[in-house]
């Protein structure tokens, strides 16, 4: 898994890191200037495919068909909700029910932080899921359009 090496700043594991992430706000955090143990977690890649494989795939599965147990993860394949690029991007930014918000929402407490995706990354993965897994939805969304969707913090 060479993808692992693309990750530079490691996800947070401690209260110290939570504080750092709060300070980072909604923008992509600056690269860590020290060599601290606990950096705020963010991906380097701006490839929709890479982002899907590193984050989304855990729940939505490699084939985009979701999974079912006591509850379920919805399939992205053939999901009509993806017809709207704006809806898809907003879901990534704000989260939806048990799905965390990847737009940089601060979490209370300790030792856990949701990876933060910036506008370009959210646009990339939005465009990726709308055109893969047998999805052929028309149109794309740009980083600037994603930015416009963000709520002012």
């Amino acid at each position, binding site marked *: 898994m060479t*993808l*692992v090496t693309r990750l530079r700043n490691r*996800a947070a594991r401690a*209260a110290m890191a939570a504080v750092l992430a709060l300070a980072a706000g909604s923008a992509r955090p600056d690269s860590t200037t020290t*060599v601290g143990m606990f950096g705020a977690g963010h991906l380097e890649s701006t490839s929709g495919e890479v982002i899907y494989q590193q984050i989304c795939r*855990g729940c939505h599965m490699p084939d985009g068909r979701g999974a079912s147990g006591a509850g379920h993860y919805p399939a992205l394949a053939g999901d009509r909700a993806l017809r709207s690029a704006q809806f898809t991007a907003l879901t990534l930014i704000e989260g939806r029910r*048990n799905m965390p918000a990847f737009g940089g929402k*601060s979490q209370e407490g300790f030792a*856990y932080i949701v990876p933060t995706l910036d506008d370009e990354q959210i646009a990339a993965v939005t465009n990726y899921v709308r055109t893969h897994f047998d999805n052929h939805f028309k149109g794309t969304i740009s980083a600037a359009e994603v930015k416009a969707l963000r709520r002012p913090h």
Partner: protein
Amino acid sequence: MREGGIGGAVTRRQLLAMIGTCAGSAAMYQAMSSLGFAAQSSFKGPTPLSPARPGASVLILGAGIAGMVAAYELRKAGYRVQVLEYNARAGGRNWTLRGGDRYVELGGLAQECRFDPGLYINPGPWRLSHHHRGMLHYCKLLGVALEPFIQTNYQAYLHNSRAFGGVPQRYRTVRADYQGHVAELLAKATRAKALDDAVSAEDQERLLESLQEWGALDGSYRYVKGLTSSEVRGYDVSPGGGLSARPVYSEPVQLPELLGSGLWQGMLLAENYDMQTTMFQPVGGMGMVGQAFARELGSLIRYNAKVIDIAQDERGVSVTFEDTSQSTSRQTAHADWCVCTIPLSILGQIPMKVGAPLADAIAAVPYAASVKVGLQFKRRFWEEDEQIYGGITYTDLPISNISYPNYGLFSSGKGVLLGGYLFGLDAAEFTAMSPQERVAKAVEYGSRIHPQYTAEFENGISVAWHRSPFTLGCFGMWTEEARAKHYDNLCAIDGRIVLAGEHASYMPAWQEGALTSSLDAIGRLHRRALEQGASS
């Protein structure tokens, strides 16, 4: 967070008694904590519930800690109790994986645990604080033996792959050097009269004296190589007896390198209130708690029951479920009241007849990612080669933790490490891997701290909590905003239904949060049941 602004009209004792009567023992205990009482009190267990109305019944959804505590206490009060559990076992996230266990994660990938007898990992909770009195109470009550959980081990490592050339540092030396340099700086400032405005001359003397001891400074208030510092940070050659063991002092790491390494961050984890020594673990694995509850409750628990609909009206609660072990035919359980401990990640997908405030609260809490990896090795090299007996190494690598078993110390033969405990982005990425890839990555990363991994590794197992069929995530992540808006609504009784679990607590992910949430919920539900009666 708690009730503030207590007026002078009632005494604290009166107020606590009121809270205990009205809201149950958990609320009283919380209030006691906030008033500073609990430190002296000895928690003797939950306040017994007064007898239930004859024939009154409660349906409990979920046989985790919250559900089973509720079942235990409500049965004792006289309720007819039934518990529905999705898994084929009790405990929920209270769970231990041992040799012979089989685990199938979401997506269908199966793992067989191949640990030797007596070896295990706890994929979920693994430690109990000495102030988690509810958990300690029920462990004692149910005969679950506890042993120390070693959170802090001075001989374990702090490791940053980008500092000290990637060489792990002993917790002992990082702590000693950090403390020593800070003490030296503060002593320097004091003696340079930089603190004259803040500290009286008399106190400056005391401060210097304490800094000298606390920081292992020499007679000139310097933190330098010598007997004083080596007595804290350790020696290059430790003192011994006879002619062969003249001590050789060790050289402290200099401050810039230490600060730049960030290793001080890893040192602070054990200072957290929830991590302070003494901590405990059940002998034989955390899952012993769930197993003990299950033995106690026996046939009250119905396994393999997947809840698919939760309805209620003025007469009672009806829960439709499928028996996943036999057929998909639907059955319905009825009761006067319901305690629902299903994780919100799943509950939000189940049709449920509740008001908008509760429904909105259920939908407001996303679930955290977390991954644990257990690794079996042919020998306990961390003990034999490195004198690490229990405790945790922290690293900046994605595995984050290597935790050494706190049981079976000095035994010859095999051992199982917790080879990774991941959060955040690393957990998301590991979740997206196959179970075998997770184990392989954990071995690869861990070998950078313990080169023995390569030769000694035998087998492993991994649990990624977002792939867990019975939780769809590790625990509920509250934002301050969501908590302010939804938390009280989540905990409030809706008709005949009340929620409980770690998600309905101020202690996310801790079993104690689930347990106190449950005691609080059933206290309130019981009171309402007595007021309204069961009219069905």
